[in-house]
């Protein structure tokens, strides 16, 4: 059963990664390339299969044959600089470094000679976006193949030069060498005056993980110095001569329409222009403070329909759920055996409901864009995980061809799935169009909390029947609204019914690190703990009894061992575990909490995660990602929740929306299981899913109180 990636339900990204991709349009003009980059060699990597298109939108194209797509290209010039072009983007997951490592490995050049051009729609090949932990499994092998092809081409050039058999030659440290004769030539010399292009598909020989020398190492961030000196220019730091600053007049609530507006006073402020286009109202001004003042001076009346609040959220989601569809035609439903029969003959039965709130991504850099028109051509610098998606949005918004739009994505102050859409880019471009000058727009923190989108809230109902020996006989699992990612169980259960029920969401919702896998794992792994207690079994033993998947067993066992599962602990302390399989990675997390029953304070003291995602590319960066997932996950587990009422967010600031801070952070340990025989998978998401259930189960262990809603203790643990 589980362990194979094919058991994932391919439904959720369609809805939860937001918006469809544009029709593919991309042409490589090689002559242009050499003109631009100078002589050398150019390797173009063509993707072979639909998988490389990744989840979003690709779903609907699976039964058509896909056009061949360019995945990446690489140029090696006479100055011996290697320039690699990929549509992937850097948002803190450190792929600028890990992808450089892949290229360095195959091409045998020092990492500092590699320049990565990322997420520039004019220069880099089309890419669906950087999400879903797809960079490591798809882009890394692509780049490795492209780099390997470059190496082979160079060896071929040297062989021709020396009129010798290429098999005698090796590539080492930026040169091709003939070990027999000790002759050797630098790459830069070999490519001098050349304009060679090679297009490769796949199947180039690759260096197996067991022989890696650059990959598998903890390489520091390649451009780290620019970050610690403040030199790096994030999207919100971009500037152009003559640039103006923009600001948008926001409606008073979601979905509101403009009834009347008076902009007279704002227009009296020197340097201010008001731009109005239907419901879109914004201003441009010489600086951001004047722009804010001008927006504040606009008098507008809005009207909106009444909307639900977070108090009635869960009933609302259930009430508005779409009815279950025909099981045969709907991938969001899975059925095996007969749940009814198994339930009827079970020795123990249990049913529970879990809920998760909406939460915000709140990346520390808010949405930002700088837009510039030149005639009908538009250039926008913006922070997004989908530069090509934003390009389509812009083309559509302004009714211009995609070829007229260039989107550039400077390495950004993170995203966590929260920067897939191009609102800030469109707003800045609309203002710039009227202003006839470049316009920069940086959302305020409140705007970012309100006008982006949220991780979906949801209700999850689980029921199960057990045999006396602890075997799970029946399993029924219904998720309302939060999403289908990670909905299937990896435990071996003969009779199952699993269903995702989309609903009408009161708030705009979209992608979030690990998508619904966090919610589904929270419900499943908390419920597993409840079942274990129902039959008086140790939660680890109970899991292993119902789990065949070797890789998942291995992480559970490794985590338990290192954590000291089953050992003595202080009186008010509790141990808990949670884990699972997501995005081709396996995680098991153990947590120790201390609960002060008087004050209600819950303190997470210690978290240990065992993780395995195939061959490890950069161990320290992997640890960094696992630690980060666990720390970010603390917020959603313990206290993060968007409060809203009648179309307004009530806590859209860091002073009212609590995020994890230094004092919240427990001791975090990671155990990495390196499986050199398994292709590397991404790691930015999976590690997150074990944390919330581990904490909830630990709180139960400490207090006997079972918490079934995320966040679990926004106001501490109430006296029970």
């Amino acid at each position, binding site marked *: 059963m589980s362990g194979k990636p094919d058991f994932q339900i391919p439904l959720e990204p369609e809805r939860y990664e937001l918006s469809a991709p544009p029709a593919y349009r991309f042409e490589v003009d090689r002559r242009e390339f050499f003109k631009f980059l100078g002589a050398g060699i150019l390797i173009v990597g063509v993707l072979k299969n639909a998988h490389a298109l990744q989840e979003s939108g690709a779903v609907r194209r699976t039964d058509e044959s896909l056009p061949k797509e360019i995945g990446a290209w690489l140029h090696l010039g006479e100055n011996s600089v290697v320039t690699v072009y990929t549509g992937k983007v850097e948002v803190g997951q450190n792929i600028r470094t890990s992808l450089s490592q892949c290229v360095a490995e195959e091409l045998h050049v020092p990492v500092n000679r590699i320049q990565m051009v990322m997420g520039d729609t004019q220069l880099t090949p089309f890419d669906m976006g950087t999400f879903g932990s797809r960079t490591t499994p798809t882009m890394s092998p692509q780049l490795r193949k492209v780099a390997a092809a470059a190496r082979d081409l160079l060896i071929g050039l040297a062989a021709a030069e020396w009129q010798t058999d290429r098999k005698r030659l090796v590539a080492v440290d930026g040169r091709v060498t003939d070990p027999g004769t000790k002759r050797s030539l630098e790459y830069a010399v070999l490519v001098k005056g050349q304009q060679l292009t090679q297009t490769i598909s796949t199947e180039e020989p690759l260096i197996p993980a067991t022989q890696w020398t650059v990959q598998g190492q903890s390489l520091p*961030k390649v451009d780290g110095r620019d*970050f*610690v000196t403040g030199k790096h220019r994030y999207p919100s730091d971009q500037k152009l001569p003559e640039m103006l600053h923009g600001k948008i007049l926001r409606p008073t609530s979601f979905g509101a329409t403009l009834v009347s507006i008076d902009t007279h006073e704002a227009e009296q402020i020197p340097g201010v222009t008001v731009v109005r286009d239907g419901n879109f109202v914004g201003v441009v001004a010489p600086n951001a*403070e004047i722009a804010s003042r001008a927006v504040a001076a606009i008098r507008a009346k809005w009207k909106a329909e009444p909307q639900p609040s977070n108090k009635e959220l869960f009933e609302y989601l259930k009430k508005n759920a779409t009815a279950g569809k025909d099981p045969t035609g709907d991938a969001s439903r899975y059925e095996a055996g007969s749940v009814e029969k198994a339930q009827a003959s079970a020795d123990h039965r249990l049913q529970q409901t879990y809920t998760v709130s909406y939460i915000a991504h709140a*990346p520390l850099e808010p949405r930002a864009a700088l837009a510039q028109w030149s005639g009908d051509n538009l250039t926008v610098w913006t922070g997004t995980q989908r530069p090509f998606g934003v390009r389509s949005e812009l083309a559509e918004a302004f009714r211009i061809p995609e070829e007229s739009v260039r989107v550039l994505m400077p390495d950004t102050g993170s995203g966590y799935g929260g920067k897939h859409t191009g609102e800030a880019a469109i707003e800045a471009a609309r203002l710039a169009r009227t202003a006839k000058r470049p316009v920069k727009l940086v959302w305020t923190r409140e705007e970012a909390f309100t006008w982006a989108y949220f991780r979906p809230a949801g209700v999850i109902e689980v029921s199960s029947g057990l045999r006396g020996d602890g075997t799970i006989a029946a399993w029924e699992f219904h998720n309302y609204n939060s999403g289908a990612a990670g909905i299937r169980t990896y435990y071996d259960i003969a009779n199952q019914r699993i269903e995702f029920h989309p609903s009408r969401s009161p708030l705009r919702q979209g992608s979030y690190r690990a998508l619904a896998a966090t919610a589904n794992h929270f419900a499943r792994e908390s419920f597993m703990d409840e079942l274990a207690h129902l039959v008086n079994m140790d939660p680890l033993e109970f899991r292993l009894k119902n789990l065949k998947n070797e890789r998942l067993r291995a992480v559970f066992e490794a985590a338990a061992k290192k954590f000291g599962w089953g050992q003595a602990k202080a009186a008010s302390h509790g141990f808990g575990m949670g884990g699972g399989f997501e995005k081709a990675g396996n995680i098991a997390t153990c947590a120790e909490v201390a609960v002060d029953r008087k004050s209600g304070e819950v303190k997470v003291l210690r978290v240990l995660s065992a993780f395995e995602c195939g061959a490890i590319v950069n161990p320290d960066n992997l640890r960094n990602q696992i630690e*980060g997932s666990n720390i970010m996950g603390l917020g959603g587990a313990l206290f993060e929740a968007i409060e809203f009422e009648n179309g307004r967010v009530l806590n859209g600031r*860091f002073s009212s929306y609590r995020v994890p*801070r*230094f004092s919240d*952070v427990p001791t975090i340990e990671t155990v990495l299981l390196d499986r050199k025989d398994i292709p590397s998978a991404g790691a930015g998401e999976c590690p997150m899913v074990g944390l919330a259930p581990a904490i909830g189960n630990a709180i139960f262990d400490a207090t006997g109180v079972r918490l079934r809603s995320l966040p679990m203790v926004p106001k501490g643990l109430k006296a029970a």
Partner: protein
Amino acid sequence: MAQVTKLNVNGSSCTIDADADSSLLSVLRDQLDLTGSKYGCGEGQCGACTVLIDGSPRRSCITPVGLVGQKQITTIEGLAQGDRLHPLQEAFLKEAAMQCAYCTSGMIMTAVSLLRVNPNPSAADISHSMEGNICRCGTHPRIVAAIQRAAKTMNRSMKESGQ
């Protein structure tokens, strides 16, 4: 409205033209092109905009430029000496104490003043002093390690230069 025309930043006197109630952050970023100090919240909650004013950490987003007067402002851009990084900058690199690094300059500036006041902070001291700085990527343990590493380096070089 009163205008401010001079500011001492990173050891030099700079000419600006700003309303006294403009935030120091916007003046640094927009007029002096010192974009290393970041906007994260605008309400003193995240620390991304932290600069030193006469050595003390200040949230530049809520500091009106008119209140700074002729005090000395240090931003992240003014920390390295030529090519030589400040020990905290080195330590953040060594410990890989960053992911997106948007919080990094504010973290480093807050830590500079912490080490000035407390050259040997415990992990708990660090966590206490850094509480006002948000890192959404969750690099907190590494930041603590980096500050401790820098403390060691700085104490060692203090001793050496004292001998």
